């Protein structure tokens, strides 16, 4: 049976603009009421909730009231196995484990018979609360935030109903029933959860359930809990889209335009089609696909295809030209103002001293280990199945429907775990997914087909972190106080022109300025301006989005100010953070644990930075030396406040990984273009961090009872400026052009 699909409204951009808050309301989750749906399913119990349609802001376009098995949060089968149906996408950050932790905690089902499956198709059930419930998606480090109450409530409700069913069957008071490790027990009686699932499903749904008190938690906050899915990943048993193999399936590789915006003019595929193993060569909306019986035949066949491109609408500038235009734009007034406190111009004019610094950031590729891919199969009954890393599954389903003409209700999305993502699988035009179904259609659906990008497709496929320039100015009074702060940012908008375009208001794409426009420091005159550029390089969110550049400029520039006024960087920040206790607390904790202010080893220096992204607060101290002119980061001490620590070990892992991901980017990563063509095609020229450059990372989690926020992204932003600030101490060189391998010499 196919999911009872919610049709995406035609006005999705407007709806997103209206409903998606620019900042999470941390109180919104607990305020929200729930209505419940429950179904008996093949002898089991499936539980789902529907947000109460209490206010305009929480109403949804969903039409389905009942929670059928595919619309539920939890399924309990007769054999006692429990499936958590995850609205949130897992690209390695551990969201499946996080949601499972919430369910295991409240249901008492244990881990042994637990699995997690990605689901979609009902905005009312799965719409991301952080996005106003407007649509289902994972992003902005919101998976635990949106799931915190939903999945605990679902599990607690299931537990109450199972308890009631057992109490009736055994003729004992419900209060005497225990549920732990997948067993329902009373005295010497014990049964699997599955034994009572069918009976429980027939009971009335309790209107109100009590969640476990925090001091009774055994899973949430347990530092020794390991990820449920780790063992398969050590044995090559975790399946990704790469591993999807359907009977008779063909494999396709793509030829994409060499310049962004170019289109196919003509194709000569005669030689390729004559090669054994090649089944077809088809032109689709995004280029030319070589379809073959296996991957090697497709790759070798591709070499035999000649494509002539129409480049009349293509981007033909190189990155050097684009960036020099960005530099010139810094001399012009910003097009739009994101924040304007006091009178910055007047305060700068009246200042005793003005500091100024320009910064430059390259395009960056996500370069996840699994190159993009998707698979599609048209079934005899007219239903279409699509496998892939569906990070925004309903939107992708809608696009699949548009591309193929297949009704939304006849499309089934199989949501696969992916080999990394870092933002790349959340793309408004469903790029590779749309390719899979377009190829399937072009070959008449004669066989299932998987499109598998090669590394070069992936690296040259665009959707980069945009390039930016920044100019920062600070006005200081005679006593060294910061009286004015000005930040002008120049670069492309990520959201404009796509389904999120409505989020751009008054010329401000919030993802261009986040991290700069919400600068926490107490400065009376503060302005943040934005100039949005028109470049045809497709861009996208890249792990921590705006904070990838804004944290660098704000935290590196503040360090310059500290040096100029002769203040300790930690002391200066704490002076300016009196109204921001969570920033201050992580800053103090990281400084203390790193031995800030104490002597460091000869030839080494410490640099510090603090940054909030997605309402998680992270401070990092980097211990750095210079070896043969190269930056060497030895140790990073990280303090994080993400509210209640649901999975402490996952939080640590995300901080460690965030440090490594961010460090690789600032040291060596950049996408450059010559005459509109991307220079880097593989990991030889695009150089992520390798193990020999990975520092020791020490993570300290702030104890908190605040609602949990995310950790997938917030570990990334502080590492760049922390390293830059340490390098400045060691060498006197303030690196303002990234990557540092380039910026050291410019």
């Amino acid at each position, binding site marked *: 049976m196919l999911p009872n699909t919610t049709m995406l409204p035609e006005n999705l951009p407007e709806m997103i603009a209206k409903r998606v808050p620019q900042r999470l309301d941390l109180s919104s989750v607990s305020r929200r009421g729930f209505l419940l749906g429950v179904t008996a399913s093949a002898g089991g119990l499936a539980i789902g909730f529907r947000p109460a349609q209490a206010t305009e802001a929480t109403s949804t376009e969903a039409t389905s009231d009942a929670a059928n098995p595919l619309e539920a949060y939890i399924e309990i089968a007769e054999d006692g196995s429990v499936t958590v149906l995850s609205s949130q996408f897992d*690209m*390695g*950050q551990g969201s499946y484990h996080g949601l499972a932790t919430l369910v295991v905690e409240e249901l008492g089902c244990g881990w042994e018979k637990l699995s997690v499956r990605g689901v979609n198709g009902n905005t009312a059930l799965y719409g991301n609360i952080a996005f106003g419930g407007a649509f289902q998606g994972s992003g902005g480090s919101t998976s635990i935030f949106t799931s915190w109450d939903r999945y605990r409530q679902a599990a607690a409700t299931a537990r109450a109903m199972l308890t009631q069913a057992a109490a009736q069957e055994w003729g004992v008071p419900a209060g005497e029933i225990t549920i732990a490790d997948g067993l329902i027990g009373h005295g010497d009686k014990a049964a699997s959860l599955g034994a009572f699932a069918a009976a429980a499903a027939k009971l009335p749904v309790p209107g109100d359930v009590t969640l476990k008190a925090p001091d009774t938690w055994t899973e949430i906050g347990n530092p020794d809990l*390991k*990820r449920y*899915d*780790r*063992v*398969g*990943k*050590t*044995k*090559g*048993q*975790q*399946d*990704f889209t*790469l*591993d999807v*193999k359907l009977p008779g399936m063909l*494999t396709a590789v793509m030829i994409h335009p060499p310049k962004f915006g170019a289109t196919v003019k003509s194709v000569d595929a005669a030689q390729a089609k004559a090669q054994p193993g090649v089944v077809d060569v088809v032109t689709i909306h995004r280029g030319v696909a070589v379809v073959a019986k*296996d*991957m*090697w035949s497709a*790759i070798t066949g591709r070499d035999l295809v000649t494509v002539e491109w129409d480049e009349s609408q293509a981007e033909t500038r190189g990155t050097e030209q684009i960036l020099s235009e960005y530099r010139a734009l810094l001399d012009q007034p910003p097009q739009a103002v994101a924040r304007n406190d006091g009178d910055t111009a007047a305060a700068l004019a009246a200042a005793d001293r003005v500091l100024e610094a320009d910064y430059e950031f390259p395009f960056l590729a996500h*370069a*996840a*280990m*699994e*190159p993009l891919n998707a698979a599609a199969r048209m079934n005899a009954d007219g239903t279409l199945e699509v496998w892939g890393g569906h990070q925004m599954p309903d939107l992708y389903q809608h696009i699949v429907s548009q591309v193929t003409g297949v009704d939304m209700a006849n499309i089934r999305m199989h949501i696969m*775990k*992916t*080999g*990394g*993502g*870092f933002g790349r699988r959340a793309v408004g035009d469903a790029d590779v997914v749309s390719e899979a179904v377009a190829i399937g259609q072009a070959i008449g659906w004669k066989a299932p087909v998987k499109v*598998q990008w*090669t*590394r070069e497709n992936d690296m040259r496929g665009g959707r980069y972190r945009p390039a930016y320039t920044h100019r920062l100015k600070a006005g200081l009074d005679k006593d060294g106080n910061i009286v004015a702060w000005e930040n002008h940012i120049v670069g492309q908008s990520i959201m404009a022109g796509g389904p999120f375009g409505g989020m751009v208001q008054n010329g401000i794409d919030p993802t261009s300025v986040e991290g700069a426009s919400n600068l926490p420091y107490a400065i009376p005159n503060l302005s943040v301006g934005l100039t949005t550029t028109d470049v045809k390089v497709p861009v996208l969110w890249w792990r921590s989005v705006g904070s990838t550049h804004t944290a660098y400029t704000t935290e590196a520039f503040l360090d310059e100010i500290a040096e100029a006024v002769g203040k300790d960087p930690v002391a200066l920040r704490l002076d300016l953070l009196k109204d921001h206790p969570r920033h201050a607390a992580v800053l103090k904790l990281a400084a203390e644990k790193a031995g800030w202010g104490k002597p460091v080893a000869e030839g080494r220096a410490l640099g510090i930075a603090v940054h909030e992204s997605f309402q998680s607060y992270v401070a990092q101290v980097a211990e750095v030396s210079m070896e043969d002119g190269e930056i060497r980061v030895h140790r990073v001490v990280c303090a994080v406040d993400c509210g209640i620590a649901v999975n402490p*070990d996952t939080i640590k*892992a995300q901080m*460690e*990984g*965030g*440090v*490594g*991901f961010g*460090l*690789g980017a600032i040291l060596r990563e950049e996408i450059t273009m010559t005459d509109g063509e991307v220079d880097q095609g*593989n*990991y*030889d020229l695009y150089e*992520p*961090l*390798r*193990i*020999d450059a*990975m*520092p020791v*990372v020490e993570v300290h989690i702030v104890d908190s009872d605040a609602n949990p926020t995310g950790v997938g992204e917030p570990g990334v932003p502080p590492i760049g400026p922390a390293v830059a600030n340490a390098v400045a101490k060691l060498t006197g060189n303030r690196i303002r052009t990234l990557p540092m391998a380039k910026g050291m010499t410019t």
Partner: protein
Amino acid sequence: MTKFTLNGTEHTLDVDPGMPLLWALRDHVGLTGTKFGCGLAQCGACTVHVDGVPMRSCQTFVGDIEGASVTTIEGLSDKVAETVQQVWADLDVPQCGYCQSGQIMSAVALLTETQKPSDADIDDAMAGNLCRCATYHRIRAAIHEAANRLEA
């Protein structure tokens, strides 16, 4: 027709001898634990053992393995491998997990060759294996821990 030993069993492959072993394993043998990352021996996700030596299967060709013994992640079985896989789980090394087959193949080869690897040994043996999740911190710790357990 190429004859070789795969995970301890005699095997024949009737494919283009110029086909990378990676695609032969994945598309023709049906073993998918070995992953595709780059195709240029730059990332190590496709690492297998050929006669005990870690090789990038995307740049090892079917014609090259005639008579050789190939081990993939599915065929790991000795004490070193079991220890490495156990430690990998105990230290919760994987995040997305995509590169981890290759990481483990490289780590097993290292520990088979060098009982007590130094940090520099680990850098040398593992720098060819990219991990975009940057689980490197735990990979290093896991290799040291596996060495300790194997010594005990």
